[in-house]
């Protein structure tokens, strides 16, 4: 079952990259990068999960001493989600500029980007 839980995370990363490789539209590429990033969040949170434990916030209903899940991976994942949204915005702004300069957003038609 560990293989299933972590495997879904790596599956999302691979599906995102496959979407980037097969893409016919640069905006579709940017959204697939976002899907690949979400795969890493799933892997992180699956690493930190403990069966039967609650969220890492102490209060009157969970006094210090109740088993909690790992908060370090949650801290990593939540800042990453917000920051990667702004990086997605930067990529979309680049796509808009490409559309203005070349008139097309189909990757195979963009000769100037060819390596």
């Amino acid at each position: 079952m560990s293989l299933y839980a972590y495997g879904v995370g790596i599956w999302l990363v691979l599906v995102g990259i496959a979407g980037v490789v097969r893409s016919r539209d640069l905006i579709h590429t940017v959204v697939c990068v976002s899907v690949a990033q979400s795969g890493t969040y799933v892997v992180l949170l699956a690493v930190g999960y403990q069966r039967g434990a609650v969220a890492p916030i102490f209060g009157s209903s969970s006094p210090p001493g109740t088993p909690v899940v790992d908060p370090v991976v949650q801290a990593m994942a939540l800042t990453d989600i917000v920051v990667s949204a702004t990086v997605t915005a930067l990529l979309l702004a680049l796509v808009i500029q490409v559309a203005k300069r070349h008139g097309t957003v189909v990757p195979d038609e963009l000769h100037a980007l060819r390596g």
Partner: protein
Amino acid sequence: MNRTARLVVFALGAGALAVLFVAALLKMPAFGADVHPYRDATMIAALLRRAPNVVTSINFDQRGLDTFGEETILLASVVGATTLLRPGSDERRRTPPGDGRMLHATRLAGYVLLPVTLIVGADVVVHGHLTPGGGFQGGVVLATGLHLAYVAGRYPALRRLRPLDWYEYGEATGMGAVVALGIAGLVAGAGFLANILPTGIFGSLVSAGTVPLFSVAIGIEVASGVVVLLAGFFEQDLAVRLRPKEDVA
């Protein structure tokens, strides 16, 4: 390289990655197991610093330097995207259209929920060290709540609520506040971004030292950053148009 070659290279790479990952997986602790050494260490540290929300304590107290770095990435991305979305030399801004029909139910729901969402967002930011929340989440809720004015009304209504200069100043203020907190830690002799204020009573609003202040600064910055970002996209779609040919000559 052409499409088929690209797909073949990707298939080989993905296969190798999957094999490596499964090999690593077989040595990891099981899903849902009890082996979390970092959790034990940070839980004790958070309780010593009187912060009930351990995730916020890690973000703004124990690993404040990482948050400072992430915030800088956010600021740089917003600056980069805004620069790319400026009108070019062959474009000009026109007055965005204010027409369009709106269902009365949508308008009512939007205008009623706008102040509610803003207050909830501010609450999430300020109580970050006590309940699930913090600067990042609350900032995004605030920014999204502001755009209910666009969902409920028209774009000119949103522009009235969103004098863009103020939000740009807000972004800079958030970043400056975090740097000021860090330097205050240096001046007090404890280190950059150290927690120097008294930690107070566990569970009260004014507790956990500098964590609420850091959370508010990040909340201001994230909210302003997301609003500025969305403003760039709105302007590109609704207001920026190619300059007519006779103007350019």
